[in-house]
């Protein structure tokens, strides 16, 4: 029985996972006026974590990234519900969205929408669900 050597896979995986995480954040932020959004961004993030899992094994990634992904599902749902309930503070109906233009020191004027926060809740929920499915299938003991 020979011993496999994953040197090429590990070297490329650490680089590609970095690019994947950047692309996921771009998809999450660009979802307002171009293709993308919370769902695709969450899928890309879970793809990056899956790539690290395939290259380095389960225990190493658990040590590097000590996140219990089951907890991300209620956190994401709470963020989504919190942004929806927050519209009651301004005497508006449930799930009302608004936007405004704000000036920042370096970046200049940026349009910020509250739909972004709802998207963040979707993102966290999708990452939690995908990684829970994948890791619980990978973790089964016969």
């Amino acid at each position, binding site marked *: 029985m020979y011993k496999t050597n994953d040197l090429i896979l590990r070297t490329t995986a650490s680089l590609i996972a970095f690019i994947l995480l950047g692309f996921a954040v771009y998809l999450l932020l660009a979802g307002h006026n171009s*293709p993308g959004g919370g769902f695709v961004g969450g899928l*890309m993030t879970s793809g990056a974590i899956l790539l690290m899992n*395939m290259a380095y094994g*389960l225990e190493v990634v658990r040590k590097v990234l000590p996140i219990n992904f089951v907890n991300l599902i209620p956190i994401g749902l709470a963020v989504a519900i919190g942004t929806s309930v927050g519209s009651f503070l301004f005497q508006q109906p449930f799930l009302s969205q608004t936007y405004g233009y704000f000036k920042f020191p370096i970046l200049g004027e940026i349009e910020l929408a509250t739909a972004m926060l709802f998207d963040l809740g979707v993102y966290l929920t999708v990452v939690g669900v995908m990684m829970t499915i994948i*890791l619980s299938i*990978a973790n089964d003991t016969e």
Partner: protein
Amino acid sequence: MTNILTATDNILQITLMISFIGIALSLALLLYRVITGPTQPERAVALDAIGINLMGLAGLMSIYLVTTKLNDVILLIGILAFLSTLAIAKYLEKGVIIDRDVD
């Protein structure tokens, strides 16, 4: 001036049609290899090449529809093809895709 514009537009359309036909032929031949590949690694390599051909097809389609909204789709197809090929390769090599503890 309009003559040159229509001429270049015609050249672009003809080139696009030739490229579409070429990629369609390549996809048909790769599908033949996927169906009648004698071993599993040949099927895996053919599926990877099908993914790359789909990237090219999406790029040609974004030229044909005159839109830039398909650029994210091209990058996404490339990433997913890489991940799926990696998963198939690890399964054929070791039998497990995510191994529990690495030495």
